[in-house]
């Protein structure tokens, strides 16, 4: 079990202005759960994610980690430009972790011939897939994904969502997915959390029915979209609305 309680998160600007972005956000994640953290852009999804990952400790509250192995995909690929793709994957594998099959991982994210390429030789879409492979290389017990499929074309996004889904089924890993794409979240998630308000708090915590019950999912999507108008504004959350790479 992975538990976090964020009572308050305040950003202090260089000029001393204080802006509270989060209040009373409680998140618990059990093994095998796929949790989608939804909300409009700028609402505080990334901030929540960073706090959960222990990257931001300046907040009121507590995060209880068990020593889970964590694999992360950031919004930007964040590959080391001076290492090849394969070496980028090897870099994050530390002592005591199972040795990953680099070739198989790259195959899985559809980058079969990229092992010896440098990041600058990859397109943005390829680099994001390499970043996903890197997160999987640590055999994560928690896979944290920050808008991992944005700027990928819909087909590729669906394929990678499939990779993530299969990974959790096969390994029992938990997934925490921050996204503004409601349809995608419902496809992947077993539970949906919605951040809303100023300062943002958890406005909804809804389990997603298992299986391929498209009708139930559509009903849930319609319900959430009516309660949180930002899902329909700007076309966010509609299938195919993401930018192509």
């Amino acid at each position: 079990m992975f538990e976090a309680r964020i009572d308050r998160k305040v950003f202090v600007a260089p000029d001393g202005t204080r802006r509270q972005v989060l209040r009373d956000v409680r998140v618990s994640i059990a093994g095998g759960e796929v949790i989608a953290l939804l909300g409009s852009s700028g609402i505080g999804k990334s901030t929540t994610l960073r706090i959960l990952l222990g990257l931001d400790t300046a907040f009121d509250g507590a995060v209880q980690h068990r020593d889970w192995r964590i694999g992360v995909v950031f919004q930007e690929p964040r590959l080391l430009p001076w290492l090849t793709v394969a070496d980028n994957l090897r870099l994050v594998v530390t002592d005591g972790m199972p040795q990953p099959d680099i070739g198989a991982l790259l195959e899985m994210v559809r980058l079969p011939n990229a092992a010896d390429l440098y990041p600058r030789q990859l397109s943005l879409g390829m680099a994001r897939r390499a970043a996903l492979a890197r997160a999987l290389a640590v055999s994560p017990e928690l896979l944290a994904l920050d808008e991992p499929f944005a700027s990928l074309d819909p087909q590729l996004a669906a394929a990678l969502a499939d990779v993530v889904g299969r990974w959790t089924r096969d390994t029992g890993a938990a997934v925490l997915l921050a996204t503004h794409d409601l349809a995608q979240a419902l496809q992947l998630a077993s539970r949906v959390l919605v951040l809303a308000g100023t300062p943002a708090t958890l406005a909804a915590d809804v389990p997603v029915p298992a299986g391929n019950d498209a009708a139930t999912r559509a009903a849930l999507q319609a319900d959430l979209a009516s309660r949180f108008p930002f899902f329909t504004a700007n076309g966010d959350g509609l299938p195919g609305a993401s930018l192509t790479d």
Partner: protein
Amino acid sequence: MGIAGRDRLLSLAGFLAVWWIAARVAASPTLLPSPMAVALFIGRECEDGAMPAAFAATLLRVVVAFGVAMAGGTVVGYAAGRSGRANAWLDPWVVIALNLPVLVVIVLAYIWVGLNDTAAVLAVVIAKAPTVVVTVREGTRALDPGLAEMAAAFRLPRLRRLRHVVLPQLLPYLAAAGRSGLSITWKIVLVVELLGRPNGVGYVLNLYFQNFNVTGILAYGLAFAGLMLLVEAAILQPLERRTSAWRSDV
């Protein structure tokens, strides 16, 4: 060789020609010897071993002082770049050291530490390290916070972080500090030797100055400058290219 390379050679030949003509006009071998006379002098000094011995003594001081200044400057610069408080403490010292005349540092080191090589190297380090600090501090501030966060998220061990995440980002700055550092270091070492060492190129230059031997001064000065240019072209520049190999097309 490209056109630029040919022009460089022509320009160098022009320099020698001007020197040669000036020597002819001056018609005073003691005041301005011809290029040929200087070359012959270098040959003689190499043959009897005086020049290699002086070069060896100076090179040793350059290498030690350069190494200490680079290592110390890098550590201090990294600390100053990482922490605002460390920088607040270190910055005034760096500013003072940067603005202290090198001559003052050398003389004080000799008075306080004694006329020995420890004082000589110390003086060079104090004069040189601040520029390394400033360059490395700049590089540290330019470190990509996204990559640091990635390393933290994956819980990379400290050593692996330094070696694979931090160091590659600092290398261009270290290379720049190293290149400008070498040319500053050897020039300071000559002054240090001139003021208080019984051997080395600076000592020999002082000797020839006392004897008003312009040929000797030109011979040692130019030969050592040439050697330093060679070190830079043969060692430092290839090293710099290698550290940035990942930027170019493979």
